[in-house]
């Protein structure tokens, strides 16, 4: 099979599953069979993408095929297609693998849902995988945008999966609005690019000024999708969705689409140093800011959510530093260990029926496998040498080393410490310490739950060693070097873990926690956006509504009123007396004759 066919299979197998489930209502309503259909689609997609990787290992070249999508004056204005190269093929594998693991996990995790909801859940999962693959294989920015919006849609629908809960409904809408707000940047960027280059190619060379505009606008969308400051507020709320959804969409793949976009559009971004500078700072500050907030969350999923923000900040900072490969590599390893962390957290939540860290404790005896998985994920996330996260984080930090300003580098170093520290907190609070009341009846889930954990733990351990191969794929330089950065980073990770054991091992509190908690509770960014929404949008819209009803339409009513009133007063001329009418005739004659005389 040709590479294009395989790419198409990887993309459309999940869509076929989704369509099948959409059309065959009884199948969907049965529940369990729907899961198998979706899983089958994902397996096919994964198989196709693995075959692609094998082919590439065998030296298969990059391929790119397009067909016209939108036409203008008989010429293709927009195209759809498949581009399979060193960026999209590894990404395809990552996405399909994580998705398959998460779906498999979901079979057990969502077991208690009513069959209809279960079917809907898996239909949406299939749709998500399709949308994500559309993003991954897209040969141009327009198709990427289409997939981008579609993953946004599935994210919206999956966050709102428990739509009966008002908080979930609110979170879904909020996520959609925030990302849609940012996506306006994407659309504007596309328009600017189109006007100036006549296409949507990321290989275009429109000149620095235009490139800066385009990339700045695209980056706006990245800020929204990848939950960077100050548009990150939707991501913690998105944890209202089922935990596997958080693992797949809001940790491993969808939020990483922003990073993927920048990696893809690297040729464009390379022409816009100003944009990169902004990215560097925003990424670094998000990394620190989110890591700080992760420290004080009581909800295990929210810790992970803020951690995702923080790690995405790393990637964005690396991209800003001009090291697209570092960001991409971190994206890959992060996808594995963050999905692992979320699924392990899901396993915990499934066992204790609570999200709150306070309800957990001492779970390592009840849930040994989950504990092992979570710890592997946490160590990887913390960047302990040898784990996947170490290699990629080291690359990110190395990218920043030696930049004009050392501040971002220091910020990321600081947040590396914080990362290890807050992960240590979670591990200790959840798995060590005294056994909580709810933990008493906890037990491991079935094979469907543990299997994916194992499957994801392996790459979390070892994916770091694939960096070399990945670098050849994207034609980047990659070599491990022993310098200041790896040593400092390892030290930070170990220090953080040590500090966590020292502080939390005895049930203590970290310094500054009070301040951070207040900061978190106050949630300034959230309030600012809410205020902007209430005043800026609702206020203006009610004003517009009032104007339309009472001024514009009022004016129309006034016209009608004036006509009616005018008619009423004109009617007074109609006395009904023949004599008066006759007199009017006489007056008329008089006027006519007068005109005749004077002429």
């Amino acid at each position: 099979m040709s590479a294009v066919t395989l790419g198409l299979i990887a993309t459309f197998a999940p869509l076929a599953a989704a369509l099948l489930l959409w059309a065959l209502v009884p199948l969907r309503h049965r529940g369990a069979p729907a899961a198998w259909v979706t899983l089958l689609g994902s397996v096919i997609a994964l198989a196709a993408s693995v075959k692609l990787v094998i082919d590439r290992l065998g030296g298969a070249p990059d391929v790119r095929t397009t067909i016209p999508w939108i036409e203008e004056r008989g010429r293709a204005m927009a195209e759809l297609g498949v581009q399979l190269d060193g960026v999209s093929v590894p990404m395809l594998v990552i996405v399909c693998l994580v998705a398959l693991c998460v779906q498999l996990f979901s079979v057990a995790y969502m077991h208690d849902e009513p069959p209809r909801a279960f079917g809907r859940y898996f239909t949406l999962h299939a749709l998500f995988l399709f949308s994500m693959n559309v993003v991954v294989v897209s040969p141009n920015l327009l198709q990427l945008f289409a997939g981008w919006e579609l993953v946004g849609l599935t994210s919206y629908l999956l966050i709102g999966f428990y739509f009966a809960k008002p908080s979930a409904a609110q979170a879904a809408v909020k996520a959609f609005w925030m990302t849609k707000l940012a996506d306006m940047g994407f659309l504007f960027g596309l328009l600017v690019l189109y006007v100036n280059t006549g296409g949507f190619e990321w290989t275009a060379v429109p000149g620095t000024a235009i490139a800066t505009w385009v990339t700045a606008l695209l980056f706006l969308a990245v800020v929204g999708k990848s939950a960077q400051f100050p548009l990150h507020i939707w991501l913690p709320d998105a944890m209202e969705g089922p935990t596997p959804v958080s693992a797949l969409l809001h940790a491993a793949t969808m939020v990483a689409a922003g990073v993927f976009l920048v990696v893809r559009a690297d040729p464009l971004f390379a022409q816009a140093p100003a944009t990169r500078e902004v990215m560097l700072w925003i990424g670094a500050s998000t990394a620190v800011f989110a890591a700080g907030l992760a420290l004080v969350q009581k909800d295990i999923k929210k810790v992970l959510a803020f951690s995702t923000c923080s790690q995405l900040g790393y990637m964005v900072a690396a991209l800003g530093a001009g090291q697209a490969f570092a960001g991409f590599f971190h994206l890959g390893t992060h996808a594995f260990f963050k999905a692992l962390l979320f699924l392990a957290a899901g396993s915990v939540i499934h066992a204790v029926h609570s999200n709150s860290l306070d309800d957990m404790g001492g779970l390592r005896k009840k849930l040994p496998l989950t504990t092992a998985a979570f710890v592997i994920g946490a160590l990887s996330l913390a960047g302990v040498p040898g784990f996947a996260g170490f290699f990629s984080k080291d690359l990110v930090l190395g990218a920043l080393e030696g930049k004009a300003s050392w501040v971002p580098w220091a910020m990321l170093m600081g947040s590396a410490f914080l990362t290890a520290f807050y992960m240590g907190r979670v591990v200790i609070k959840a798995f060590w310490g005294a056994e909580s009341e709810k933990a008493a009846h906890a037990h491991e889930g079935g094979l469907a739950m543990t299997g994916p954990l194992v499957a994801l733990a392996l790459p979390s351990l070892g994916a770091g060693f694939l960096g070399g191969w990945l670098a050849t794929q994207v034609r980047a330089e990659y070599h491990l070097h022993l310098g200041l950065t790896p040593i400092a980073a390892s030290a930070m990770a170990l220090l953080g873990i040590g500090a966590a054991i020292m502080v939390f091992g005895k049930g203590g509190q970290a310094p500054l926690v009070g301040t951070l908690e207040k900061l978190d509770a106050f949630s300034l960014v959230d309030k600012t956006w809410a205020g902007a929404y209430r005043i800026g949008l609702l206020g203006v819209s009610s004003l517009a509504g009032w104007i339309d009803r009472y001024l514009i339409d009022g004016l129309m009513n006034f016209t009608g009123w004036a006509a009616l009133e005018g008619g009423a007063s004109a009617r007074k001329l109609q006395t009904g007396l023949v004599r008066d009418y006759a007199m009017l005739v006489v007056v008329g004659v008089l006027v006519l004759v007068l005109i005749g005389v004077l002429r």
Partner: protein
Amino acid sequence: MNHLLATIVAAPAIAGAVLLVVPSTQRLAIRVVSLLGALVSLGASIQIALQYDRATGGLQLLETVPLVPSLGIHLKLAVDGWGVALLLLTGVIIVTGVLASWSVERRDKEFFLLLLVLVAGVFGVFVSQDLFVFFLFYEIAVLPMYLLIGIWGSSHEVPASGPFKFAWRRFAVGSKEYAAMKLTLMLLVGSAAILVAMFLLWGNSGARTFDLQVLEATKFPIGVQHVVFPLVWLGFGTLAGVFPFHTWSPDGHASAPTAVSMLHAGVLMKLGAFGVLRIGMVLVPDAAAWWAPIVGGVAVVNVLYGALCAASQKDLKYIVAYSSVSHMGVVMLGIATLNAAGWNGAVYQMVAHGIMTGLFFALVGLVYERAHTRAIAKMGGFAHVMPVVAGFFTLACLSSLGLPGTAGFIAEFMVFAGAAKGANAWWAVPGVLGAFVTAVYVLRACKAIFWGPAPAGEYSHLEDVRRTEWAAPLVLGSLLVVFGFWPRLLLDFIDVASQGYLGRLPLVALAQVVTP
């Protein structure tokens, strides 16, 4: 020469005539006859699309019958690419509209009769190539609306307020009679403007003919063009909801019964935009090029202002109605760009919005029929009892906000790309902002109606879609997605027509277009 175009116009009219002799007690027969008339039209429109040669373009399937040769009036029917797309839209909407109004109780015979007359007029407009006949059909399409809303509509109250409060005592603002009267009067004022423009064209054509092809070939004096274009723009534009002559639309669509809202917002508003495009832009291109910045500026107001107004509404039907004002602004924006992308987008948006708003109104009608309320505040959690309605409503919302994969995206994207390429690139900014505001209000409404805890009390036993009600969501929903993924189904027709007509625009306007 076959008679497909005559068939498409005549089928609803004949069905209407048959309805006259069907006794009003035969309720099923009435519906079946109406449905047959609609189905024949739909079939004919599909057949037309199949027979139309997309490679050649231009006017095809010509049929001519002289009516008043001494005045240059001919019943000349032919169809261009735009017409094909809009005929398909009309056919789909009328079939689903008839099925959606299956449960009309009161005076159903007259209801279906008027519906069929109306749709015959719509078909007539899209296929007539004689200005006089065009106008005649236009009026046939517009006028039944008065009765349809006045008799079968629904009323609500609008409290008196504002500087024109004193005018309220003259009208029952918000009642169906008020809505019907306002709609009819405003559209008739528009018609009067069109009539004047029409006779100006006729008088200055030299040939004393209403034949559109002859008029197209005529180079009108610039002075005449500058009088004709604003008349055509505002005359037809009133029907297309051009600010500030859009206020008939929210009240009219909110008061109208389901099928009528579907047809009116779905198809009739397009007549207005089609008129501006086909008469204004094509017949008087020099003035059109001069006026385009103004048309586009007003359209931008329409997009953003309509969206903001929709965001402030508390009545479900008003939200949908104002969204039409906003989306028709996108159409007018596309028209004003004066380039292929914009025009293609405008016509595509006509179809996309027609399907989308038809779906919206069909679903709103379903909800209203069951819950007996349109106030969003009273609803909540309806997805528990009517999941199918919720699903399709969400789909309509997504197309409305221009999500890729739905027809709305293709249309809006082309319009914005056209605007960005055109002389006034900034038009794209409020356009995209309008799409964002749309996202806010449609999803908020969607959440408020369908999401949340399962409804209790009187709403706990609302039924989901059943029997003929399936038609509108299923057909229109699928088309939204199909046209969203495979735009060439329609674009091939639209593009060939746009190419043909664009050649007529003066070079000044074309020179402003940045060609990459």
